[in-house]
């Protein structure tokens, strides 16, 4: 009953997103024209999403090694050694296009997908993070998209019982037609119990577990690699629906099976579902596969091999079991009410043979699809240097601070994180709102710090500097809580790489990130690339999001941003008063110009290591890195978190007051200490610029060259914008 195969026309080829050249290559590889099923497989395997054909050349330049790295990029997620026989396994992934089309399900399935990437390697997920970018708040779609995305992330994460502990949100008109939803998961496994996707053992069974296969997301992978146009509406039926309840069962069932010796290899069915999982496992093991598609558990009658191979139904995994372990595995999955089916076997042919009711409906060589996929060295032009920044007017400091704290990019995200269960698992030590979240991993008080960051406006103005800055800010956020930064995962969100200026942004950002990673011993262990983020030729800001993980080996030696009374404030790092591309410039002067603040990687490292040691030595009672909004905003966030006022004294010399207070010079930390002399002396010894700039106490914030403002007033300014903006949105 082989479904009759339509003749493969140029139109059908184009519809599958293959260029004539790529189709030619496919014909060459097969030695004949592919049938529809095979064409569909080529199209998903060679989509930008699965093949990284535009970015591969440049990704290879990122540093991926360190003594503590167990597994770098190339597996489902990165793995690092965190001591005590434990490994941290983490990755970030984008779900941008689906979330724009259906914000709730798009974001929810994004979370589900990244969770599977992590637990497929044997880790129990312990934390979720997310990085979100929306359009202008005044754009008609923005509220609805934000409400849906946040509800979707919460709806999925809360139900699976993994705390959502940190993230970031920006608003900018460049995302009006193309929002960004990047989700990150961190998990913990025993270093001797890590599972990989490398198939082994000719004759071993190929096993399907999880949910049934439906017609969800057919061509989702190719859609995720095509920029939007007015026809996007027709692509709607491809949106997948997630079931966090089944995901929770799948986590428990997989971890239960992973405690046995039954699994040879395992891989989640993500984008391009059964196709990419089976091809990747076979390719990694240098083997072949025979699949019996009539054995695939289906949700609907009459599903074709084409639909089964391309479906992106959620909550499904593919495993290679060791001989004689089927019954053991079947019992566990049936206990958890999940589907379990042997759908094929490993062969030594190096080919994928697809059989349906006894007939061969498709046959393709594995490596040429999985590895010899097209790789492009796309033409690119460097981003021109920004013009020198003209004069920047001085706004009255207190008024400037109030307006900055009430602006969309700086106001409190409480409205968001209170919709996420950030405490389930009862190990969340530092909740959302600080520099990095801290999650305990052992009863003895070993913990992981994690943060996700990006400053797209810097990357737009200067991709190389912006790339350095992204890595440096994550590193800073981890140091600021007293953690040793270990490694990062990155999510490169860019426009259409076939445009040389966009390609130039990608190349530049990767170059800058690589430099920073090397200078800070902060390797990349996993990541994801999302290109074609454009609507009708309008590209997003270059947005290379970085998620970092750091280790705190003793929870009693860490810091948070909340200040108490009677402390001295010390500013670490050099302040030049850099206002180019600052939020002060954008929010108060309506300008987005100038160069971004330069990152001095040597100083960055020196200052970061100093702060960490000062926290370890108990010399610091509170710490906050300086980022968006500069010194004044950081000071206000520390005061509000601690419910304690503070006074910033006027400084002699140095930059003008607005540069001093709102400049975004890099590599800086504001700390509170009870022993300023000792701290300043230690800083001097370490060659770290440090100055006493104020003291804590009272219930107001006092700025040099400005008056005082009560914490109550500041808090209202900071807490009101988001709830006010979202009021009245029903889901």
């Amino acid at each position, binding site marked *: 009953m082989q479904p009759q195969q339509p003749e493969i026309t140029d139109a059908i080829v184009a519809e599958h997103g293959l260029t004539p050249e790529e189709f030619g290559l496919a014909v060459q590889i097969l030695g004949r024209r592919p049938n529809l099923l095979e064409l569909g497989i080529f199209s998903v395997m060679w989509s930008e999403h699965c093949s990284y054909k535009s970015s591969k050349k440049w990704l290879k330049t990122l540093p991926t090694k360190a003594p503590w790295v167990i597994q770098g990029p190339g597996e489902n997620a990165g793995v690092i050694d965190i001591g005590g026989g434990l490994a941290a396994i983490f990755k970030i992934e984008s779900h941008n296009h689906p979330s724009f089309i*259906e914000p709730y399900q798009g974001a929810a399935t994004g979370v589900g997908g990244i969770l599977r990437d992590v637990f497929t390697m044997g880790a129990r997920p312990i934390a979720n993070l997310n990085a979100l970018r929306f359009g202008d708040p005044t754009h008609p779609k923005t509220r609805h998209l934000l409400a849906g995305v946040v509800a979707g992330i919460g709806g999925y994460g809360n139900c699976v019982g993994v705390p959502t502990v940190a993230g970031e949100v920006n608003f900018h008109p460049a995302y009006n037609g193309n929002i960004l939803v990047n989700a990150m998961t961190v998990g913990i496994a025993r270093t001797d119990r890590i599972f990989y996707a490398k198939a082994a053992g000719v004759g071993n069974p190929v096993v399907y577990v999880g949910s049934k296969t439906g017609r969800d997301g057919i061509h989702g992978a190719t859609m995720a690699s095509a920029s939007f146009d007015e026809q996007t509406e027709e692509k*709607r039926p491809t*949106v*997948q*629906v997630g079931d966090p309840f089944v995901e929770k069962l799948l986590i428990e069932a997989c971890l239960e099976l992973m405690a046995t010796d039954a699994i040879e290899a395992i891989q989640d069915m993500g984008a391009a579902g059964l196709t990419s999982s089976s091809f990747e496992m076979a390719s990694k093991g240098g083997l072949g596969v025979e699949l019996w598609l009539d054995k695939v558990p289906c949700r609907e009658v009459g599903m074709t091999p084409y639909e089964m191979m391309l479906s992106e139904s959620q909550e499904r995994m593919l495993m290679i079991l060791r001989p004689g372990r089927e019954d053991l595995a079947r019992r566990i999955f049936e206990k958890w009410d999940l589907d379990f089916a042997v759908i094929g076997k490993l062969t030594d042919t190096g080919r994928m043979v697809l059989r349906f009711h006894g007939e061969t409906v498709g046959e393709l060589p594995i490596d040429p699809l999985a590895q010899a996929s097209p790789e492009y060295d796309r033409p690119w032009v460097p981003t021109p240097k920004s013009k020198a920044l003209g004069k920047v007017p001085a706004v009255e400091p207190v008024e400037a601070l109030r307006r900055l704290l009430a602006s969309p990019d700086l106001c409190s995200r409480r409205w968001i994180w209170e919709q996420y269960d950030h405490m389930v698992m009862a190990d969340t030590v530092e909740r959302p709102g600080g520099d990095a979240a801290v999650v305990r991993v052992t009863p003895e008080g070993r913990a992981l710090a994690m943060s996700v960051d990006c400053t797209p406006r810097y990357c737009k103005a200067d991709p190389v500097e912006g790339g350095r800055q992204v890595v440096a800010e994550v590193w800073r956020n981890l140091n600021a809580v007293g953690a040793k930064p270990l490694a990062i995962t990155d999510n490169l969100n860019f426009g259409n790489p076939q445009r040389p200026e966009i390609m130039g942004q990608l190349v530049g950002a990767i170059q800058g990130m690589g430099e920073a990673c090397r200078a800070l011993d902060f390797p990349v262990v996993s990541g994801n690339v999302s290109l074609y983020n454009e609507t009708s030729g309008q590209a997003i800001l270059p947005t290379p999001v970085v998620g970092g993980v750091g280790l705190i080996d003793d929870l009693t030696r860490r810091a948070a941003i909340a200040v108490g009374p009677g402390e001295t404030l010390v500013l670490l790092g050099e302040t030049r008063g850099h206002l180019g591309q600052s939020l002060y410039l954008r929010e108060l002067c309506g300008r987005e110009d100038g160069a971004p603040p330069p990152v001095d990687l040597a100083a960055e490292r020196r200052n970061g290591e100093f702060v960490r040691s000062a926290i370890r030595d108990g010399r610091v009672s509170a710490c906050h890195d300086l980022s968006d909004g500069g010194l004044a905003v950081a000071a206000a966030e520390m005061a509000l978190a601690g419910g304690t006022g503070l006074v910033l004294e006027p400084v002699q010399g140095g930059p003008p007051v607005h540069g001093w207070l709102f400049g975004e010079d890099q590599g800086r930390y504001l700390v509170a200490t009870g022993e300023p002399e000792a701290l300043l002396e230690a800083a001097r010894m370490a060659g770290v610029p440090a100055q006493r700039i104020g003291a804590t106490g009272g219930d107001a914030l006092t700025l040099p060259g400005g008056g005082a403002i009560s914490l109550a007033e500041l808090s209202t300014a900071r807490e009101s914008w988001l709830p006010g903006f979202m009021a009245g949105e029903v889901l």
Partner: protein
Amino acid sequence: MKARVQVTLKRGVLDTQGVAIRNALKNLGFDGVDEVRAGKLIELDLEEKDPAAARRSVEAMCKKLLVNDVIETYSIDLAG
């Protein structure tokens, strides 16, 4: 007049709730239930008296707010 909108998932869209309800019914010993679909019911009291006009405005409400046409379909009943 009164309008009743019945919102159901489009064919082919995974009905996570329906599947769970069906399994629960099975566990309770209710066999012979082949499929369960879960949907939403929205009842509106309208000031509008003219059926045609009422239907038009409810249609508009569905498109604008009540229904997520990416995954849902709907039907409208009017009652005096």
